[in-house]
């Protein structure tokens, strides 16, 4: 009995934290269906204004275009980042040599470079190449991230060397070993990497805001940020926009969350 009683504060604490975590999200979802007045009136129940909010939102904002550009940017970033970083992480581990270790160390230093310190020259670089407003300008600076390379190097460390030996004996080319042996085995790691990369790319705000000068190319975070620029804010429509902008990352998280934790275990030992 006493041990049961001792558990109470623990569950109470968890309940409060969980409530505080989910509360604002619940409010966001509910508010997307309410009128602006009801949102400010703190209604915690779903309303019937969803369609009107949608009409008010799409009247002045091209949500379809923003969703399209966000999707292209995020998918392109995720695919390229996974390919480039995983093959590099694998290369550092499997073909390990002192010089490669030195290079790895230098690349890890890049983790310490704040984006702010590279932003202006990057803008100038892409402007010189006439790439302002292009998806590649959004994507290129975020493809190769030291953290992902580290993640995949750690994963490669747990990949049995005997498999590689056996594959070589069978006459498989090095790239084929990576592609046919390593990639399928490391699915949880890829899932974890995909979740963090997609979320970061989808939610990225500062760099797209700098490089996508023309509002025709704006992403969802840029759209909702601009939404509050006017004098009168339609809070119902705003919350609907915020909800739409958040749906893809929430869905991805729920689909891949099992592998997410599994993939992260063992990154830092």
């Amino acid at each position, binding site marked *: 009995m006493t041990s049961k009683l001792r558990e109470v504060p623990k569950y109470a604490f968890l309940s409060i934290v969980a409530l505080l975590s989910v509360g604002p999200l619940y409010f966001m979802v509910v508010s997307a269906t309410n009128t602006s007045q009801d949102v400010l009136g703190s209604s915690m129940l779903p309303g019937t204004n969803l369609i009107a909010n949608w009409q008010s939102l799409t009247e002045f904002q091209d949500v379809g275009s923003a969703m399209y550009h966000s999707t292209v940017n995020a998918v392109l970033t995720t695919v390229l980042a996974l390919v480039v970083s995983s093959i590099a992480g694998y290369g550092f581990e499997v073909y390990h040599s002192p010089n490669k270790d030195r290079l790895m160390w230098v690349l890890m230093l890049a983790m310490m470079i704040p984006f702010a310190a590279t932003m*202006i020259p990057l803008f100038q670089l892409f402007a010189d190449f006439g790439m302002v407003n292009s998806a590649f300008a959004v994507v290129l600076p975020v493809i190769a991230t030291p953290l992902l390379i580290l993640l995949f190097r750690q994963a490669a460390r747990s990949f049995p060397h005997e498999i590689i030996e056996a594959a070589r004996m069978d006459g498989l080319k090095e790239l084929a070993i990576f592609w046919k042996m390593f990639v399928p085995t490391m699915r949880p790691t890829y899932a974890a990497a995909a979740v963090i990369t997609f979320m970061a790319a989808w939610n990225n705000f500062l760099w797209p805001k700098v490089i996508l000068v023309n509002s025709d190319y704006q992403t969802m975070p840029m759209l909702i940020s601009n939404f509050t620029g006017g004098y009168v804010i339609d809070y119902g429509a705003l919350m609907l926009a915020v909800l739409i902008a958040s749906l893809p990352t929430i869905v991805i998280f729920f689909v891949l969350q099992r592998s997410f934790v599994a993939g992260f275990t063992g990154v830092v030992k």
Partner: protein
Amino acid sequence: MTPVVVPDRAPKKKSKGPKIKPSPAARRRSLTGWAFLLPAAILIGIMMFWPMFQALILSFKTGRGSALDFADPLWFNYTRMLEDEIFKMTVGTTLLYLAIQVPLMLVTALILANILNNPRLKFKGFWRTAIFLPAAISLVSYSLVFRTIFATDGLVNDWLLALNLIDGPVNWLGNTDTARMVIILGLLWRWTGYNMIFYLAGLQNIDPTTLEAAKMDGAGPIRTFFSVTVPQLKPMILLTVIMSTNGTLQLFDESFNLTRGGPANTTMTMSHYLYEVSFVNNPNFGYGAALSYVILVMVAILAAIQMKVGDKRD
């Protein structure tokens, strides 16, 4: 088929004798390895190191738009900073966020992870998902949700009034102290669950027998936590400290969207001011680059200190 000696990861002794020529197969394989690294290394070089050096050169230049020339004296932009009251305030504000938010968040995340790691805990998946969920939302989205909740006629005031905790509506985002507090609350809300996941992953690597041993020796749960769990989590703690320090020093989305830097620039972060200087109205790339180097140096110094401290406790 020729049997080949594969250079493996076994610790190699540095031989001082004449170098043995590697077999052609081994050499080819080493080249393959370099080819695997190349795309990532080139990208990091062009997209991170090169612009970092460019920014340093740029920070010694003045002028508007693309018409830039070396300043006279060269360090003009850096001396200008010392008289820039707004910039000095953004440094103070950013450091305030860092000093309050990061320790609060990481301690909370560590406690939560420790509770969730208990094998006898019920509804573990539910707690983990609920607490991590805020990390799935974009920074701009949550900033605007918080802006709405903390509006003068918003949810927080309504509830506090209903509970008779305040006499009249508080202008949360209109006063410096409360506006800064809202930003800190927002950061805690968004990032605590995220860091908890890192600690949970770290806890899975802890040998359970060490916890059993502590129990056998008569250590209570709190003692066990500090003497057994925390030391083993140290690499993970160091990683999260460095990541959240970097993130806080580069804070932009919340300042830009939640408070717009207001009232009177008192919630504005360094990155937000850097953006205003570099890309709004009269862009000044030279001064912007100089400001960005202050952020770079602060990140480097804090990371170096953290790694030093992190190493010492061994």
